[in-house]
């Protein structure tokens, strides 16, 4: 399943959240000849279920659509990608986005990514957890697409309208 904007743009806009059109935060040097979006997609690919194919559009909509201070985020993103690439180089000998899915998974499993602290002002790895991994997980599991996989098309954190109430199952 390819993730798209679906009806999210409408929903987010209705809630007063402006989605980013061009995502200025996602361009620029990363130190590894990759656009930040490429790295985010390669990370999302490991975090999200295998049936899901993360797209830049999805990340722009559901993640960047809910980032209110892009300038600060861009700094964290740049620093985070550098940390991620360092971990990837140490573990697998290459920049994160150039690795295979198994290698990327291995980088996460063999470091403090996921298992370590996730803090906005913590260590380099703790900040990667907070600003990259957790942002991507928030984006997916508070979207209708992620929620639907668990049977909830309006998960908490998503402005999907109110009052959803199906008939009582007998």
């Amino acid at each position: 399943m390819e993730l798209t904007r679906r009806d999210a743009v409408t929903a987010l806009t209705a809630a007063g959240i402006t989605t980013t059109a061009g995502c200025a935060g996602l361009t620029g040097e990363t130190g590894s000849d990759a656009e930040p979006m490429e790295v985010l997609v390669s990370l999302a690919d490991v975090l999200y279920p295998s049936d899901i194919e993360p797209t830049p559009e999805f990340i722009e909509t559901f993640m960047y659509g809910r980032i209110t201070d892009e300038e600060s985020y861009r700094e964290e993103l740049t620093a985070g990608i550098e940390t991620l690439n360092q971990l990837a180089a140490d573990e697998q000998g290459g920049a994160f986005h150039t690795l295979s899915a198994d290698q990327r998974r291995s980088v996460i499993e063999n470091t403090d990514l996921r298992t370590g602290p996730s803090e906005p002002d913590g260590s380099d790895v703790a900040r990667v957890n907070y600003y990259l991994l957790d942002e991507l997980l928030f984006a997916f599991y508070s979207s209708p697409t992620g929620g639907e996989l668990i049977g909830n098309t309006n998960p908490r954190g998503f402005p999907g309208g109110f009052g959803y109430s199906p008939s009582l199952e007998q």
Partner: protein
Amino acid sequence: MTTNQSATADRTPVDSPDVCVVGAGPAGALLSHSLANRGHDVVILEAGPRFDKESRVDRMKRQIHPDRGVDEIWDMGGERDEYTNSSERPMPLNKRRVKGVGGTSLHWASVVPRFRERDFEMQNRHGVGKDWPISYADLQPYYAEAEQEIGVAGPDEAPHQPPREQGYPMDPLPTSYADKLFTKAADALGYDVQPMPMAINTGAYDRDECQGYGTCEHVCPSGGKYSADIHVEKAEAEGAKVLTEVPVQRFEHGPDGEEITAAVYATPDGETRRQEADVFVAAAGAYETPRLLLLSASDQYPNGLANSSGTVGKYVMDHGGALVIGFLPDQETHSAEYGPVISSGIQQFYDDDEDPIGGINMMLLNQAESPLAQMAMESNALGDDLLAELKRQYGGTIGASTSAEMLPREDNTITLDESKTDNHGNPVLDIDITPGQYVRDASAKAADVTTELVEEMGGRIAFEQGSHTPNADYIEPEQYGYHPMGGTRMGEDPSESVVDPTLKTHDLDNLYISGGGVFVTGGAANPTLTIMALSLKAADHIHEELQS
């Protein structure tokens, strides 16, 4: 990433205003608007900032993040908000209150039932507590006015609610799936499920409608939930001036000790300024208002201002809680799909004249588990393993949260802790509150009824507050402090109360108190609507006084 608009704000005292209000939360906002709307010059002194509305999305994400505390959502904590808890039980005050324009209504769940007639006359009816000097009928028109002002969606006719003079401004919220499950079980057991009055805009009011974020407690990014910053802004539109990040350090009185002459406040750049006014209103919340009065001690009033009765900081109350969460195996509960946290309740045990006497206000939850995204972030799993884990963990929950009545007791207190100071060197408040058997009995009854309902649905109890302690921030074992009341109670007799029925202090001719602190008994209904109604009543009295 979360900024506020206060950095360059003007903090110069206003020249000769009619009224100075300390606190920009619900107790100060409606009152200020009511007075400004009638042409009075009003200045509001607020200890916290004015939060950017755009920051609410970030705050909502903080709420969902598993490693961020509730106190972090609205920037509470640190030296500014230090306090001491001498109670035996945890009282995480900074997870319960917000300092800023809008006050604690920024993170409330917006549940707004009225108090019941019996709440004003518990001594007369049941021989417990103390009767208020005003009745439900006295407050009824102000309840109606408050509901119109903030926009309440509620049931015009419901089996268990106090008399109404007119319909609610908006129809009740739609019936949620959890409401339907509860209603079916309640019908079988002879209980009544009824819509809960909620301050959520379903379209009739001039603010965004509810968008169904499902995070109203503690952040509503859309603004569909009422918060008191709305009336602060309305007051400003009528000419009121708001000074932010100016915590009031003390009140000063004149040489005869009969009137307040100034509210002395601190500014972020270290200056101390004096705001003069004809009338002062202490609306800093039931935790900080007694502290402010005690900090304002003078040679003439060594025990603190408005404290000739010695009751400032006494008869402090809270509500008891009974959070019960059930699990329905193999059943869908559609947890959190609906949006608002609460839409219905069970009120028949509030005023049934049966034991336990203590009021019981049962709120049926539309989301009884962590947000999906929070579970995902909390896990260490990846990809398909994570999805499988979430599928196992998520869903099938149902729950209810109850507010239960606690009796006023002289030895439940807010005092000053002289051994600890805030960022301005002022002694912090020290809360010491013990729930008695009365509130425990009411809480236990609510837990029993919820258990009965869950079992009738075919479920089993997964969590009962206090008996288990899951490692989830939103479930806390027997922690309280949500509904502070008392401490500056109302009464006719100056020897045993702080304010009179107009909410003016007995001791000082131009000092009023607005807030839950003036409650004589605590009922079981969420207190904010009653705080608002009382504030509108006080505004009328202040208006009359200024006119004369």
